[in-house]
């Protein structure tokens, strides 16, 4: 299979079940909503080192937010049920509560599994906090020096998907980066999907474990590292000198598939030899995104 002359490998991306929450952050203007969202999603690229993965899903117009102000929707994922509320309380408390003019709302209101995040953060109010029930939802008003921080008492948690991916195998680093940027642009603002890595792109894809260091849970993906072509069981084809990975997390498989479809098509451009994907032989993750099936 080829798209614009770019070969699509007959392989699949292997992804994992994670737990996801959607956080809606609003602010006086888009700048302040985004400031909080950027801080909240900082250092949240991979559960390997950050214990969570997070990213901006999309910017929200004022008409789509509960308080009628501009907002940003963030997806926040962890590997298990227990760590999601822990990570959220810490992150929201340090990055959104502290950010001028922001308020924080649940973006998964119909999900039955609830996390008492606002309820935990309310105690910052030191007894001066107050709650309001509006439309059946409880909100906490926490007095702060600027005025008041408003946060919903609970946030929905559901199963999500982490680790959707595809690899861009390019003739050189410049063409690889151009293709990756085009893919990211095509996938930006797709509902239910985030790209948690810097600019949406990973240059250091990893394999599980280490060939040499027992303490390492992940090390460089030597099979796709062009500089190691001569000394490893390489998967880098002839003529490929740079490989970049796009990692996608999302609320469900269909969202990931839809975004991958857009991203891969955008990445198929001059200077790219092939599109591949990372997997572990299908033994670790229950979600398999077959590239050719997605693009058919």
């Amino acid at each position, binding site marked *: 299979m080829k798209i614009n002359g770019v070969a699509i490998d007959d392989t699949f991306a292997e992804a994992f079940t994670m737990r996801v929450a959607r956080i809606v952050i609003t602010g006086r203007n888009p700048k302040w909503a985004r400031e909080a969202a950027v801080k909240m999603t900082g250092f949240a690229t991979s559960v390997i080192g950050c214990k969570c993965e997070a990213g901006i899903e999309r910017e929200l117009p004022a008409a789509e937010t*509960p308080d*009628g102000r501009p907002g940003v929707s963030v997806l926040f994922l962890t590997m298990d049920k227990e760590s999601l509320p822990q990570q959220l309380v810490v992150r929201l408390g340090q990055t959104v509560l502290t950010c001028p003019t922001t308020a924080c709302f649940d973006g998964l209101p119909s999900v039955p599994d609830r996390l008492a995040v606002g309820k935990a953060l309310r105690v910052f109010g030191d007894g001066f906090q107050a709650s309001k029930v509006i439309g059946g939802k409880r909100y906490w008003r926490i007095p702060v020096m600027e005025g008041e921080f*408003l946060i919903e008492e609970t946030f929905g948690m559901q199963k999500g998907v982490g680790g959707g991916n595809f690899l861009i195998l390019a003739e050189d680093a410049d063409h690889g980066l151009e293709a990756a940027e085009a893919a990211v642009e095509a996938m930006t603002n797709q509902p239910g999907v985030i790209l948690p890595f810097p600019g949406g792109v990973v240059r250091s894809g990893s394999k599980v474990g280490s060939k040499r260091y027992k303490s390492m849970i992940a090390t460089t993906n030597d099979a796709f590292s062009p500089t190691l072509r001569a000394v490893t069981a390489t998967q880098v084809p002839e003529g490929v000198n740079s490989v970049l990975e796009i990692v996608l997390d999302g609320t469900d498989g269909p969202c990931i598939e839809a975004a991958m479809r857009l991203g891969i098509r955008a990445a198929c451009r001059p200077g790219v030899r092939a599109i591949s994907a990372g997997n572990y032989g299908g033994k670790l993750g229950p979600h398999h995104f077959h590239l050719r099936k997605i693009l058919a």
Partner: protein
Amino acid sequence: MSDTIVLSLRQAPDHALLADCIAPDRFAALTAKEIASLGVFHGGRAARLGDFFKVTGERSSNVRLEGDLGRVQGIGTGTTGGDMLIDGSSGRDLGVAMAGGRIEVRGSTGDNVGGARPGATKGMTGGEIVIRGSAGDDAGVRMRRGLLVILGNGGRGTGRAMIAGTIVLFGKTGSGAGRFLKRGTIVALEAMERPATYRYACTYRPPHVAVLLRYLRARSGVPVSDRHITGRYERYSGDLAELGKGEILQWAGE
């Protein structure tokens, strides 16, 4: 089962008609005949609801009342759920001791809306009451939770001795509003007379008011203007003669 139960007033009461049996959650399990046979008091004498109302529909928690109900008292007493629309005005004690559900009144109401039963320590403990006209005296007295919205004017003692909850006042209000309030919020979109035992805190944009007013606009079609949603409010803490954890939020402009 019907979509809506309609109670049409066919005989205007000569005296006060105590009809505290009218509540949408109670009607949800009753046939039209059973609803019509519920007991009321007319001028202190026992009668049946069907003596005054024509009942159409059955087994529904959506209820609509038609006619001039200015003499009908206690509508929605103790309601715990469902939705009730009064297509006109209502007498006193509407939604007394209400715990859930929603009541909307297209006209005005008498005294003690959402208030407490005689001798009770708590008024309404949940649910929503939206009055498109004006309310009589003592609306929301000893209210513990819930939302009371008055698009017209409030009477004397609105929100008196509130324990918690929220009252939104679009119009003016009589004296004594918010007196002895422990917690809770009175959002006043017009200038209101405050008890001397309230103290000014600051002028700011309370974020929950925007959420609340937008909710009212979307849920009940309340004509909230943008300047009230995005505007600044003066916060007065009180009643300092009581617990002092409550507030009057007085709209102060854009």
